[in-house]
């Protein structure tokens, strides 16, 4: 019985490790500047914990294999423990875990501990139940004033733009997120109703969009393409359908898009949304 269980544990260990190693189910390719660093940190961590996992399971199996009850009625080792080994084990795990923890802050620090560099492309994100609204400043680079009281979905004023403000005349509000390649992007995110979460696996980035807060985040996409954008915080009935797209354009195309008058902007976005999903040439 013990040996069967030992063998089973080893088989499970091998299969579990295979699931990660096979590469069949892995992250989609990263498209942000911090992506490779993220992937490296993930790989290091998964190797560390994978080794710990495998070693523990192998050791467990070994004990079961080796130390079953004997027919001769002999007794086990009468030991209450060993403080030196105990301390050693504690020390090793402490060092390993804290090292991993500290390295695990680097990407985070890069993204969150300073503001977006000047010249970043800016987009306001306004989430609402089951729809993403992306608000671009238009040709003048200035966001128009918004007022919650002016929000009227029926009139397609999803973010409450105030007509009285000249800055807002050329602002664009669409449901697709467009970003330039190779330039920092700053998102200012808020929600009209409940908490949502902006999630694009390729970005290696996720941020809750919280009503009442204007959360500013930034990162730098470095590859073009079109990707699915999901809501990752439970926001009600149609949470699973709160879908949109992220399109990363070459800088020049992005600039051209931003200069388009309102009438053509939407049309161009529709056109862009016909691009195939994924990186150019990638099987999505």
């Amino acid at each position, binding site marked *: 019985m*013990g040996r069967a269980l030992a063998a*089973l544990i080893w088989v*499970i260990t091998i299969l579990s490790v295979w*699931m990660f190693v096979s590469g*069949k189910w*892995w*992250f*989609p390719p990263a498209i942000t500047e911090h992506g490779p660093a*993220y992937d490296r*940190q*993930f790989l290091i*961590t998964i190797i560390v*914990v994978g080794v710990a996992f495998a070693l*523990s399971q192998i050791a*467990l199996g070994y*004990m*079961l294999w080796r*130390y*079953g*009850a004997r027919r001769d009625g002999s*007794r*086990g*080792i009468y*030991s*209450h*423990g*060993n403080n*030196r*080994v*105990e301390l050693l*084990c504690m020390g090793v795990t402490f060092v390993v*875990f804290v090292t991993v*923890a500290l390295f*695990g*802050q680097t990407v*985070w*620090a890069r993204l969150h*501990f300073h503001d977006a560099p000047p010249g970043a492309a800016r987009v306001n994100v306004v989430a609402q*139940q089951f729809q993403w609204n992306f608000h671009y400043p238009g040709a003048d680079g200035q966001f128009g004033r918004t007022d*919650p009281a002016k*929000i*009227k979905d029926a009139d397609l004023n999803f973010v409450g733009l105030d007509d009285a403000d000249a800055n807002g005349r050329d602002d664009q509000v669409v449901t697709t997120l467009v970003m330039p390649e190779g330039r920092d992007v700053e998102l200012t995110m808020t929600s009209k*109703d*409940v908490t949502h*979460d902006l*999630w694009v696996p390729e970005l290696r*980035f*996720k*941020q809750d969009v*919280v*009503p009442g807060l204007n959360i500013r985040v930034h990162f730098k996409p470095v590859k073009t393409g079109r*990707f699915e954008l*999901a*809501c*990752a*915080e*439970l926001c009600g*009935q149609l*949470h*699973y359908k709160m879908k949109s797209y992220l399109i990363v354009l070459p800088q020049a195309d992005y600039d051209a898009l931003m200069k388009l008058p309102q009438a053509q902007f939407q049309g161009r976005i529709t056109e862009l949304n016909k691009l195939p999903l994924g990186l150019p040439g990638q099987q999505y």
Partner: protein
Amino acid sequence: MSEAVPHADSHGPEEGHAAAHHHTPPSGFIRKYIFSLDHKVIGIQYLLLALFSVFVGLIMSVLMRLNLTWPDHKWPLLGTIFKAGAPGGQMSPEFYLSLVTMHGTIMVFFVLTTAPQGGFGNYFLPIQIGADDMAFPVLNMLSFWTTLLGLVVLITAIFVEGSTAFSISLHAKSGLAKFAETYLGGGGSGTIGPIGGWTGYPTLSALGKIAGPGQGAGATLWITSIAIFCVASLLGALNFITTLLNMRTRGMSLMRMPLTCWSWFTTAILALLSFPVLLAGGILLLLDRHAGTSFFIPGNLVVSDQLLTQHAGGSPILWQHLFWFFGHPEVYIAILPGMGATSHILSTFARKPIFGYRAMVFAMFAIGLLGFFVWGHHMFISGMSPYSGMAFSVLTLCIGVPSAVKTFNWLGTLWGARIRFTVPMLFAIGFVSLFVAGGITGLVLGQTSLDLSMHDTYFVLAHFHLVMGVAAIFGMFAGIYFWFPKMFGRMMSDTLGYIHFWPTFVGVYAIFVPMHAMGLVGMPRRYASFAEYVFLNKTHPLVMLVTVAAIVTAAVQLIFLFNFFWSLFKGRRAGDNPWEATTLEWAVPSPPPFDNFGGRVPTVYRGAYEFAVPDAPEDYVMQTTPDERAANAPALAGAGEQGGEVTGNGHHDGHH
């Protein structure tokens, strides 16, 4: 020295056991089995409550899997029961979400907080420390009935909202639906139950019906149920701590207690300190919903295209802080008793003293203590300050250290052992394996950077199902198989036990390991269907695999259920000590008499895990065996001294 001395002279001048001591067992069915003050009956009541809940939760999880795998399929039976939730038998997204919410809530609160602590703890803590009952028997009974009330309210939450057929019939009869409509913020939205997730984040949970289906009366009852549950757990915790501190019998020094007692003690402390915070949070949430306050609701919200003017100034993040300040200790409340039972059972069937008893105790306390300072790791992505995220992250990884110590000690216990592979032992070994598998991914999630991707994906689900969903459940299974003979005087069937173990062990790995892979691909949690997203297509085979595994595993649980009830009546009779174990519960008849020790007070002579004692007549020496009888085992006496680094089981207490 006699093994037991009469009760009267065993205590100081103060009340001691006397306060709790009720001499004659009650007669009459109601006093004996329903409103019983006996901790053993209450323990069984808790277990039955958990058993009922776990099967409700299990059925819900299978329904969830069915919906995720075949989103368009019609299940006629469902259609008849839930006319509104599953019209024509096809599950609606809100129905799915209410399943998720109820599954999570039931499993976390009414299974994993009740059975290991309220069930086994209630039954065995007093016996293992040599007491005749809990310190406050009446309070104990109240805790149970309050918990039951919480469960009833929670189950009601499924039905008050939506299901029109049900509402109408009730309307005529009891007016429950009307009551819900009038006082709880309205029903009739066409769903079943609350859909806010077990974490109930505002503003979704605070706005009421305007936020969509599943936010009306059902949500109110959901919070009410949680608040009731908080009160019950608080009372229970207070009782446990007092009992353990004040009612240990002669010789039962702290360091001689079985590790199970330590785990229930630590758990009770965690519960005592964390539930009041959730209670306060729950009250505030109820006020937001019904008194018009806005603790968790900021101003200028536009919900369903309507500007809300009556709310301003609050913060949804505040709820997350309050919830997770409770929530993280809560997950340790769920696992610690499992760890205790595992240690206990491993040592018993390894026929070896537990390895590093003191280290185990300290690790448990370290986990408990650190557990209060890591709640922020659930909130890295929430919009909380990134600097505090970093601090929480480092503390989070530190909590892995005591867990590693425990794992190490379990392996140490098995090393050089003579393992008897009984059914409880298999489940205890399964616990170790699953705990490592699940705990280890906590180290991935605990890093701020990595959580950027992993948060709210199936990777998190995989993590917590392995560690909580099944490791802790395996701890419960181990406990049931181990203690069943003591509780009911009969053995559970071994054959059925083995048939239960093997597929379950394989099954749960097959369910939850693939979820990691789904998480890597990026599959978000709480999605009623994955059909919308192309990037999830490649996970479809996994989704199917998980579902099949879940159905098989769930079906296998029926064997357990059958075994449980069959053995109650038909099981082989168990002696007092069928497992040849050492602790006090095995020194009394099975099942134990009304006041456990027949009015006598046992005396304890040694630590809890004296197995494989060289030269002792048997390979185990019970805690109650007087020294004269164990004395022909000279090595036993010097156990603490040998080799300098061997830690005795606290034989020194009170001497140095």
